[in-house]
């Protein structure tokens, strides 16, 4: 039944977030979500799809969970009144733990119709926003915040998260289990923080949302470059945050994601191949998203303090504003990268700045900077550092070195389309090497991830 699959894809994480709030427990909510979809699979084909599938799923899941808890509580009471050998502490302890959960849930008053509609009103009431603040709580270790949000808010599998962060899956699983235990044991609440705590709590939330977006925009492995749902989700969550707190960095991050998203269709060809920024058909860029993003950039840069997200968005807006790649204002972009590298002196920002300088001042200047970064050893395992270097070598006519650098990038590339792109580049160099005439190739910006 494709209708149900559709509903699952669209609604399952929202239903889950609401069930977490209602049941006060991740694992109970996961079970309830599963039960609700099993019930839907049985009932919808005969009864038809309900008018409000989400409300139906929440209500069914909640009912099943409470029913199961009541049965368990009854069983435990029966167990307690029977002559159970007192030595069986394990069962007795288990019964006590379960009863406390059951009491808490049953104490929740029965749902009325007005409560049913209250779930869906207003951004502040969005259960996933509530859940994201819980998952990004400062009482949790930073790496656990990201893993937990991707798992619980976005529904990624442990394996997908592990790939995104180059960490073994059991490590991620352990982080998630420990974080969930802490949420339960220390009683971290499911709520959007009070206004006085909001600003400091926001920073971790923004970083998590951006990671979710990137996972959707540029999946770390597999055969599809883009996974629209995750990026759409990240943008939707970010719109809610912006409505709640229109700080410059919030506006900046929303702008940045919209400007990247505007190029989604243009960045892959019909046969699934990577198309670089310079080669993209700019008529396929989403104008509405660009206009919205550019307006947000103006607002973000007008506020204080200006942060890294606002600057990255401003850079993306300069690209989006160029009618063709040769008209790009590289001087402006270099200036913005210099500002950014002062705020965020990371090797990846330095790499992007080097590429921008290569575009403004020529490949020799950029190559020297990239070689410095690689010499520090920080990005030696980063595919895009090697492919950017390869491109500059290619433009300087140093074919053998370019080919070697592309091959190095190829060994680090996790995505099939990116691997195909790098292989095409290598083939091209090999073919060119066989030719006598050497013509200057048109200069192009290439292979910097945040630009593509």
């Amino acid at each position, binding site marked *: 039944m494709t209708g149900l699959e559709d509903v699952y894809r669209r609604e399952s994480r929202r239903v889950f977030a609401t069930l977490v709030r209602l049941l006060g427990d991740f694992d109970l909510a996961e079970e309830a979500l599963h039960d609700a979809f099993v019930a839907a699979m049985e009932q919808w084909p005969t009864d038809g799809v309900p008018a409000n599938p989400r409300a139906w799923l929440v209500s069914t899941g909640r009912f099943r969970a409470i029913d199961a808890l009541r049965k368990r509580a009854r069983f435990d009471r029966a167990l307690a009144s029977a002559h159970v050998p007192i030595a069986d502490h394990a069962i007795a302890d288990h019964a006590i733990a379960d009863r*406390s959960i059951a009491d808490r849930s049953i104490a929740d008053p029965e749902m009325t119709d007005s409560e049913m509609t209250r779930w869906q009103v207003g951004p502040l009431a969005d259960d996933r926003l509530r859940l994201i603040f819980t998952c990004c*709580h400062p*009482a949790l270790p930073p790496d656990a915040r990201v893993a937990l949000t991707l798992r619980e808010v976005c529904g990624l599998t442990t394996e997908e998260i592990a790939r995104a962060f180059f960490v073994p899956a059991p490590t991620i699983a352990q982080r998630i289990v420990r974080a969930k235990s802490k949420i339960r*044991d*220390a*009683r*971290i*609440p499911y*709520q959007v*923080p*009070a206004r006085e*705590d909001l600003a400091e709590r926001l920073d971790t939330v923004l970083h998590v949302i951006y990671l979710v977006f990137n996972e959707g925009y540029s999946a770390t492995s597999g055969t599809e470059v883009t996974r629209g749902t995750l990026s759409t989700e990240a943008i939707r969550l970010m719109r809610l945050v912006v409505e709640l707190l229109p700080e410059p960095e919030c506006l900046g991050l929303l702008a940045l994601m919209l400007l990247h998203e505007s190029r989604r269709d243009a960045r892959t060809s019909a046969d699934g191949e990577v198309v670089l920024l310079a080669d993209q058909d700019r008529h396929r860029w989403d104008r509405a998203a660009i206009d919205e993003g550019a307006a947000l950039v103006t607002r973000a840069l007008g506020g204080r303090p200006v942060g890294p997200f606002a600057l990255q968005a401003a850079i993306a807006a300069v690209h989006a504003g160029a009618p063709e790649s040769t008209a790009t204002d590289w001087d402006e972009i270099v200036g913005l990268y210099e500002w950014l590298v002062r705020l965020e002196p990371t090797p990846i920002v330095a790499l992007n700045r080097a590429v921008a300088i290569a575009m403004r001042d020529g490949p020799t200047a950029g190559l020297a900077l990239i070689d410095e970064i690689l010499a520090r050893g920080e990005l030696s395992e980063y595919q895009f550092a090697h492919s950017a270097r390869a491109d500059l070598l290619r433009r300087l006519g140093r074919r053998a070195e370019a080919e070697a650098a592309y091959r190095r990038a190829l060994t680090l590339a996790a995505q099939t389309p990116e691997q195909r792109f790098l292989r095409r580049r290598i083939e091209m160099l090999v073919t060119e090497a066989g030719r006598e005439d050497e013509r200057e190739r048109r200069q192009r910006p290439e292979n910097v991830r945040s630009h593509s």
Partner: protein
Amino acid sequence: MKYLCLLFSEEAAWGRMSKAEQDAGVQQYAAYSADLKASGHYVTGQRLQPVSSATVVRMRDGKMSTTDGPYAETKEQLGGYYLIEAKDLNEALQVASRCPGAHHGSIEVRPLFEM
């Protein structure tokens, strides 16, 4: 839910304070305790004597070993505690952040097992 707030601070700092500063410190804690009682968060709380008065006891292989003070090398020492009642961690952290000790030391907030 009950949370134990463990107050850590640099014990030696107390000795470097003037009498007036020490009095002001005691006043601040008295006011904080009164606030917690008024808001219903207070269960109990005490200031501890200095680490120099502490003794550590261990039973190993049926034998008792006794040593003086714990962890002398750490910069901050446990100097007192509050046991508070709060509805969740956010509320407990809010309460803990208002403690005078949060300004010069650090406060570890630990949930208790519910019995």
